[in-house]
């Protein structure tokens, strides 16, 4: 069996999420990578565990229509076709599946065997084990569930492919990076949240923002903090607010009401900082620290 992974390049490097997808793909056998656009060929060829890089320099913007069409021509050589569960992977792979009349499998968190996978449903409130009868399996991979392969150490061969003929139905106009330095709460890799323990709105900003700046984190808030006017509504993490699942979630001065826990329990690593050692947040935290926020948070800012 051989797997093909559609990889993504960011600042000349292969994205970590793509490297996680390669790690997942290596479970099935040998791995080839498909690289779109003119950048990143070198980075791709040194990836650990990749046999061959198929490079399509002409597909700069990774539009779904030509990319899926190209993938459909490559599909017969592969048992599995994978991508990260990124906005690009989720845009392209289901379209490929549509062309092949295959049922794609999104957000795989665990591979049981070559045709059996585990994926979250109902916003992570349940895990479904699913089995595919398709001859080629099309998967998107939750990067937090697979340790990425190393950026170096590999020596893949490089094969340049032509883009398929453009039908011209879809045209790239522009890409705009988020203006704010602070990422959106739902997609942030790191989230730092504050609760009532921060006492007032100015503490909320003055203590959390420096840490958020250093970590490139989004800022969240507990319901109590929102109700007390420390933070606007859209920052609230929890049942009627937002559900987040970042790589790192730092909860400060919030006890961990069940609604809040429901909104962040899928985070990969949870840190809790609170004065009350009995606070429920500690029951879900990987790392807890008991103490005074007004000492700990400035010290943390310094230490980062």
């Amino acid at each position: 069996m051989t797997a093909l992974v559609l990889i993504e390049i960011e600042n000349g490097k292969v994205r970590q999420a793509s490297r996680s997808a390669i790690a997942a793909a290596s479970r099935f056998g040998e791995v080839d990578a498909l690289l779109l656009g003119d950048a990143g060929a070198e980075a791709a060829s040194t990836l650990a565990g990749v046999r061959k890089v198929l490079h399509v320099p002409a597909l700069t913007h990774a539009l779904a229509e030509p990319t899926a069409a190209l993938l459909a021509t490559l599909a017969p050589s592969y048992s599995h076709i994978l991508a990260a569960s990124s906005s690009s992977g989720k845009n392209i792979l289901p379209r490929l599946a549509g062309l092949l009349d295959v049922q794609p499998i999104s957000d795989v968190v665990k591979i049981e065997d070559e045709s059996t996978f585990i994926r979250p449903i109902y916003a992570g409130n349940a895990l479904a084990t699913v089995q595919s009868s398709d001859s080629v399996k099309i998967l998107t991979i939750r990067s937090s569930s697979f340790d990425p392969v190393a950026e170096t150490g590999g020596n893949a061969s490089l094969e340049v492919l032509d883009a398929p003929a453009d039908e011209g139905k879809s045209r790239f106009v522009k890409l705009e990076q988020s203006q704010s330095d602070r990422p959106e709460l739902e997609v942030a890799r790191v989230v730092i949240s504050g609760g009532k323990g921060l006492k007032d709105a100015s503490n909320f900003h003055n203590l959390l923002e420096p840490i958020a700046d250093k970590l490139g984190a989004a800022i969240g808030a507990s319901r109590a903090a929102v109700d007390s006017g420390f933070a606007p509504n859209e920052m609230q993490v929890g049942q009627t607010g937002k559900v987040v699942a970042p790589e790192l979630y730092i909860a400060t001065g919030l006890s961990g009401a069940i609604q809040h826990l429901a909104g962040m329990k899928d985070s990969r690593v949870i840190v809790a900082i609170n004065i009350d050692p009995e606070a429920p947040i500690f029951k879900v935290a990987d790392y807890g620290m008991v103490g005074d926020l007004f000492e700990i948070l400035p010290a943390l800012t310094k230490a980062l």
Partner: protein
Amino acid sequence: MKVLVPVKRVVDYNIKPRVAADGRGVETQGVKMSMNPFDEIALEEALRLREKGHASEVIAVTIGPQVAQDVLRTAMAMGADRAILISTDVDCEPRVVANLLKAVVEKEQPGLISMGKQAIDDDMNATGQMLAAKLGWPQGTFASQIDIADGHATVTREVDGGTETLALTLPAVITADLRLNEPRYASLPNIMKARKKPLETLEAASLGVDLTPHLTVVKVAEPPQRTAGIIVETVDELVQKLKTEAKVI
């Protein structure tokens, strides 16, 4: 131009899903069911396109048993002109849904399909893309803004780290993300009026689509409970652990 809006009946987003004790799935009997929230947004967008004069008719379509009609009534109460129920008791996977919708598209010939980016039950995020592929239409997924002019749709998409804008030649499939709009209420007078709007039922079997799934659910389980980790004493220790042990910073 007709706009087709596929909608799905799902467990209401306020309900905390409960995994059935025997692991066969999530309990859906006797719980409040509603229109998938992303589909509401897609419908709202279609209604706004009609109100701006870009669309002549908005048609809601769903697939499911007879009770799935209620989401079509809601769609018509919000403003859809008419609705189609593709009637089947089979639980259809996105691939089958796309095949069934393709059959409806061939019959109705819409100029645009506006649908939610994913359903909040199976979270698959695939049907729109698959339907576009099967029709050979361009796709604008995860849309946060749509402008229609001269047979084109300019779609702003939510992508990792920002937004991307595409120009699509119509007909096209557009899937709605959260920030596209704020859907309207179905007001009581409109709910009353919606009772009289036309609702057509098509037997799924009559559309010539094989409903057999390619993906079967073996088991559904609750996610493992998180357990308490360790208590660190100093900020330095915390930073150290995050760097070397958890490798998140």
